Structure formats: structure tokens, C-alpha cells
């Protein structure tokens, strides 16, 4: 078997998985059966494409192959159908086997959206939403997902199974939400995709290949969402945020592997094309009404991206954007992040006062960045003893090796 065929199958896996699974699910009427058929279809492609050549439309080939298997499975086991309630196509009836061609795009497009919205249903816990999205929409194996989230394969398998059982038992419908529910439901989808991105982006260590793959998957998912829902500004906002954040990828670690802060990154090595595209999307996402939280986060990222240095960043504008962001997304984490901008506009003392309020509030107890931020502000104010204490508090709740390394170095600087 040539490398080309293997690569073509791998490429088809990356690009077409959701498309093929969703289309097969319509025929299979059940996600587990659909998954099995799609897996088999990809495996069969290795031989078939080696023998007959890689088809022009790999997605169509795989869909036909998978659907044929699903129909055969139904014929073989009629009784099994009554016990497979996981996905119920709204039209109910079994479709005749269509020839897959360019005329079906809108039908297929809807199917992928249905899949995504089902995986991100609020009835599922966040962890389950993430696991299910990676499994069903991205086609990652349970092992790969487990590695990405640093849990055992058994734990992840159980999580996915539980989620599927919940969908089945409680009858989570397989559909794109109604107009009225869409903003809230879309927000959940975007949150899951963003979580995939940050998991891949912020934690070097573990299996690095899987991490970079997560970032790429998140970007691809967002591109797919943009294609399927071109009018949704928050999708553009998320895409902008991902592009602008990922533009810094090359500069986030020093040659010796040490984590580099925004202040220390070599801006000349940021991906300017990604930044330009991100900025374009931000402008588009901000226009036409109240900007959502992803558009606002992207706008903040854009201000960082266009500043020649940390010090020359338009901090006042960043602060204004954070004010907006806190309004639409009153999360204590956002309030904390705002204090950093505040410190650059009004000085560390003003920011420290707000951090103290957050500490009293209690909701961020155990959140390592609360203590790390406090420590940095105290350090800037010259209060070394208090800064040292705060760095120790941060270390007590930080597991990531790179972050521990960073905090330990800072601690030694103030001790």
C-alpha cells in the first residue's frame, strides 16, 4: 500500500468524518451503528483505493460505502432496530439509497449541524459535550481523546458511553435548534469548540502531536460552522479569536522549552497572515448589533496582535472592551482578566484592590491565575514578601509543569 493512499484516507478522515457520519446516521437511524459503518468504510477504503485509485470525491465514496453497510445491517437484523433509539431522523422513513452528488449539499450540511448541536446539548455535562464532539464530529478515537484530557482510556470510554445513553434514554432530539433557542445553543457549541482549542493550545506536554491536532480540529470545526451558518456573527467572532490566538503559536515557548508570556514573545514571529484574517473577521463580527462575547474576546486579541510591544498596546481600549465583555459575560474569570488591563491603565494598586474583591467573593478559590495575578501585581508594587506568599499559593494549585516552572522562577526572584 502506498503512502499516498494512507495519506488520502487520513486526509479524508480529517476533512470528511463529520460529513460521512452525519449522512450515514440518517440511514442508520442510530449513532452507534453509524459509527461502526463509517469506521468500516474508512478501513475498506485503504484496500479499495490502493486497488482502484483514490476517488475524486472521497467524502461521497465513503458515504456510499458506509450507508451501504448500514442498510445491510438493518436487513440482517430487523429486531435490532427497535432497540436503537439514539437518533431519530425527523422524516422517520428509511430513505432509498441515493446517488451522492453535488445536488445534496444543503441536506448534508444540515446533518453535520444536527450532529454538532446534539453533541453540545445542555442536558449533557460540559466534559461529555467535549468528549462527544471530539468522538462523533471529529472522529478521534477514545484513546486520543483520553490522552488530550489526561485521563485513562477507560474513564473517557465511560464518559462517552454515559453521554450516548443519556441522549438515548432522555430522548435528546437530533435536530438543529429552533430560531428562539439558537443563540443559547450556539453559545454552548462555540464554548465547546473554544475549550477544544484552549486544551490544545495552552498545555504543552502530554502528547504534543495530539495537542496540535486539537488546535487544528477546533479551527476546522469553526470553519465548518462558518460555512454552515454564514450569518452568525459569533461564529466569525470565535474564528477570529482562534486565528489571532494561534498566530502566536511559534513564540509561546522559548528554545529551552520554557513558557513565554505575552510580554516576552517575539512579535516578529507572529503569523501576520492569520492576524490579518483575524482582524478582518473581528470587524465583521463586531458590526450589526451588540457584539457577543466571542467577538469581544477576539477584539481584545486583535489589539494585542497589532501592538508593536506589550507596553505599546492600546490598554485603554483593551480595558473598554473588557468592560463590555464583563457586561455580556459576567464571569469572575473575565473580571480577573480585566484587572490585568486595569493595572496597565490605572496602575497595579487599583488592580490589586479589585483582585482583593474577587478573593473575598470566593468563587475563584483554587483558581491558580487568581493567585498568580495577585502575586504579579504585588511584585510590581515592590511588596516582595506578600508576592512570595501569593506565588506559593499559586504553586499549591498548579499542576502543569511549564506553569510550575514559571511560578517557581518568579518566586525565587522575590525571595
Amino acid at each position, binding site marked *: 500500500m502506498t503512502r499516498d493512499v494512507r495519506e488520502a484516507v487520513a486526509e479524508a478522515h480529517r476533512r470528511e468524518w463529520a460529513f460521512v457520519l452525519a449522512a450515514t446516521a440518517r440511514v442508520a437511524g442510530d449513532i452507534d451503528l453509524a459509527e461502526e459503518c463509517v469506521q468500516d468504510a474508512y478501513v475498506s477504503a485503504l484496500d479499495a483505493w490502493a486497488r482502484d485509485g483514490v476517488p475524486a470525491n472521497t467524502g461521497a465514496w465513503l458515504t456510499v460505502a458506509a450507508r451501504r453497510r448500514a442498510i445491510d445491517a438493518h436487513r440482517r437484523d430487523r429486531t435490532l432496530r427497535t432497540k436503537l433509539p439514539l437518533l431519530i431522523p425527523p422524516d422517520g422513513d428509511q430513505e432509498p439509497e441515493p446517488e451522492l452528488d453535488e445536488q445534496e449539499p444543503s441536506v448534508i450540511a444540515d446533518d453535520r449541524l444536527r450532529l454538532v448541536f446534539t453533541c453540545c*446539548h445542555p*442536558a449533557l455535562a460540559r466534559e461529555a459535550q467535549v468528549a462527544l464532539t471530539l468522538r462523533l464530529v471529529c472522529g478521534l478515537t477514545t484513546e486520543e481523546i483520553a490522552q488530550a484530557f489526561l485521563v485513562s482510556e477507560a474513564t473517557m470510554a465511560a464518559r462517552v458511553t454515559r453521554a450516548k445513553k443519556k441522549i438515548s*434514554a*432522555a*430522548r*435528546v*432530539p437530533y*435536530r438543529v*435548534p429552533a430560531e428562539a*433557542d439558537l443563540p443559547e445553543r450556539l453559545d454552548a457549541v462555540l464554548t465547546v469548540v473554544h475549550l477544544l482549542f484552549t486544551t490544545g493550545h495552552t498545555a504543552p506536554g502530554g502528547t504534543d502531536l495530539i495537542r496540535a491536532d486539537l488546535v487544528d480540529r477546533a479551527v476546522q470545526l469553526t470553519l465548518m460552522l462558518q460555512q454552515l451558518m454564514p450569518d452568525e456573527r459569533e461564529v466569525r467572532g470565535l474564528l477570529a479569536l482562534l486565528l489571532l490566538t494561534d498566530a502566536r503559536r511559534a513564540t509561546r515557548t522559548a528554545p529551552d522549552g520554557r513558557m513565554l508570556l505575552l510580554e516576552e514573545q517575539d512579535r516578529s514571529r507572529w503569523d501576520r497572515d492569520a492576524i490579518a484574517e483575524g482582524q478582518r473577521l473581528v470587524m465583521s463580527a463586531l458590526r450589526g448589533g451588540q457584539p457577543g462575547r466571542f467577538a469581544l474576546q477576539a477584539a481584545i486579541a486583535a489589539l494585542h496582535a497589532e501592538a508593536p510591544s506589550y507596553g505599546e498596546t492600546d490598554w485603554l481600549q483593551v480595558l473598554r472592551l473588557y468592560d463590555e465583555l464583563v457586561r455580556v459575560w459576567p464571569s469572575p474569570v473575565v473580571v480577573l482578566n480585566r484587572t490585568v488591563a486595569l493595572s496597565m491603565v490605572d496602575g497595579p494598586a487599583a488592580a490589586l484592590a479589585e483582585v482583593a474583591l474577587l478573593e473575598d467573593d470566593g468563587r475563584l478559590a483554587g483558581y491558580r491565575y487568581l493567585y498568580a495575578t495577585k502575586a504579579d501585581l504585588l511584585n510590581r508594587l515592590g511588596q516582595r514578601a506578600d508576592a512570595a506568599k501569593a506565588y506559593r499559593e499559586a504553586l499549591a494549585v498548579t499542576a502543569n509543569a511549564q506553569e510550575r516552572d514559571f511560578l517557581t522562577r518568579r518566586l525565587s526572584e522575590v525571595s
Partner: protein
Amino acid sequence: MAQYLILIYETEESYAKATEAELNAVMAAHNRFAEQVAELGATMVGGNALQPTMTATTIRSDIVTDGPFVETKEALGGYYLIEAADLDQALAVGKLCPAPYGGVEVRPIMTF
């Protein structure tokens, strides 16, 4: 269509402290709720308010004790049995169910 139980959990103290006007408002909301369920296209199969937890008796391994099964801040105070097309419809019904002093749980009925 599948059946779901909507369980209403609320603090009993709130009802004890409520004014007559507030209590009437809740009653009216429950009456209105029955209509709203039909408007959504779901079916109200049944429902009842329960007497307060001090009237409950618990049996565990043949031992009978006074009080509810679990002592919780928000106690089980009533239920509705509904029929809905899917979870989304059941949740839409659940959101309309009056529970001003707590919230509701939506649980699918087991089918064998």
C-alpha cells in the same frame, strides 16, 4: 411521544412565609401551566402538589421513620407527569412549570 416526570423542589420555608397574594399568584401560575402545556403541543397526563415533608414517612429495610427520604434544603413538593415528543419539548414544559422558590427536575419514565 414519551413520558417525563417533572419533579418540583422548593424551600418549604418560602411557602410558610408567603403572603396570601403570593400564594394566589402561584396557584394561578399552576392553573395557567396546564393550558401552556397544551399550547406547546405536549400532554399533561397528571400532577399533584404534595403535603409538606413533615407529613412524610420513610421506609428503609422495613424500618419506618418520620420524615422525607432525604433531608434537603429544597424539598420535593409536587410533580407533573407529561407526555412530550422529545427532551427539548419536555424541557420547554419544565421551564414553564411554576417553581418560584426552587426549581424542577425533568426525568424520563422508564419503558421496558
